[in-house]
């Protein structure tokens, strides 16, 4: 089983219908993937408000376009791909380029986790976008290099390079810890 499938829980065997039997919307997909989409958006944008906007945009797109998937892994990959591309579009906008960098004191990790975790998250978000996206998908979403290449639209060689350089930069940012 692909690593990405291990995260899908109850969706491993049956694809989630977009509508319930009564015709209402089925929000199981949103409840299952909301955190993954939000974290991916936060990783790319480095901003909580933007991540929230991206998450809403992606789920609106999901429920309005009714895409069909062969498997849950495709469904999650589609959501991550949409999220990352929408976040990249936001980063490319002229308004976004004029914004200041993320205030790392706003990170929620500082409230619920220890200082070390917060430091790691801050270091990841300080990486260039292509590096931190690859690092997030590889280490947190357990995606393979091939899956990351599909989601991000880059070649596997480029993804491998981004992972390698991202690890080197993380090592420097975390003060020479062995990573």
């Amino acid at each position: 089983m692909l690593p990405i499938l291990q995260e899908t829980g109850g969706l491993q065997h049956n694809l989630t219908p977009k509508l319930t039997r009564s015709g209402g919307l089925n929000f199981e997909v949103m409840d299952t993937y909301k955190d993954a989409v939000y974290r991916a958006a936060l990783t790319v944008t480095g901003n909580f408000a933007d991540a929230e906007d991206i998450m809403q945009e992606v789920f609106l797109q999901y429920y309005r376009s009714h895409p069909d998937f062969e498997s849950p892994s495709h469904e999650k990959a589609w959501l991550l791909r949409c999220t990352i591309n929408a976040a990249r579009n936001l980063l490319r906008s002229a308004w976004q380029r004029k914004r200041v960098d993320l205030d790392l004191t706003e990170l929620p990790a500082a409230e619920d986790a220890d200082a070390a975790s917060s430091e790691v998250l801050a270091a990841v978000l300080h990486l260039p976008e292509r590096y931190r996206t690859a690092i997030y998908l590889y280490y947190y979403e357990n995606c393979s290099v091939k899956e990351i290449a599909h989601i991000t639209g880059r070649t596997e060689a480029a993804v491998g390079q981004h992972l390698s350089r991202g690890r080197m930069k993380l090592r420097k940012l975390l003060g020479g810890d062995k990573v």
Partner: protein
Amino acid sequence: MSLKRRIQQAYDPIHAPEDAIERLKRELYQSDIHEGEDAEFELYDVEEASSRPGILKYLVYIAAVLALCVGVGMFWNAMQANRNELHPLSAVSPDGSPVPSDGIPTPPDLESETVNPGQPYIEEWTEGTVPNIVNYHYEYAKKIIEQAGYAVELRYEQNDEVQASSVIRTEPAAGDFAPEGTKVIVYVSQGDSAADE
């Protein structure tokens, strides 16, 4: 501790804000989305993200179609102008109908109809030379000569080979070079003198 474990510990406390999720669910309920209703959303494909905005793409399509129409119109006008310029005497036959390319047009019957004021037809003509109007009806031939830029003088003589009212020959002869304004003497047949007797 491995990097993977540290990253997982860093990301685990991050959750999607519940109030945003609830707002989104309410919005989806109110928007009344149903199965099969395709939205006008653009998929955020990688190629799409790097391409031009949608409105600009449609403007480019419209401009291309307009440019094509203008091009076709200009080409058509150029073809018409070129045709008139190269063949000033080859537009239509005296009666306005298409003229067969393999024969001399039938002269008009002077008793029943007049020569059409439209441009006379002649198959081959090089500018600066006297047109070949032998065997043409003299009125028709006269128009051709005048349109070619020459003055016309008609002279009549009897001829048993050429039909009456048709041109026997010209001076200068057909195909000879002659400056514009030159008087071309057109000899018109009066028919067979023996038949008259």
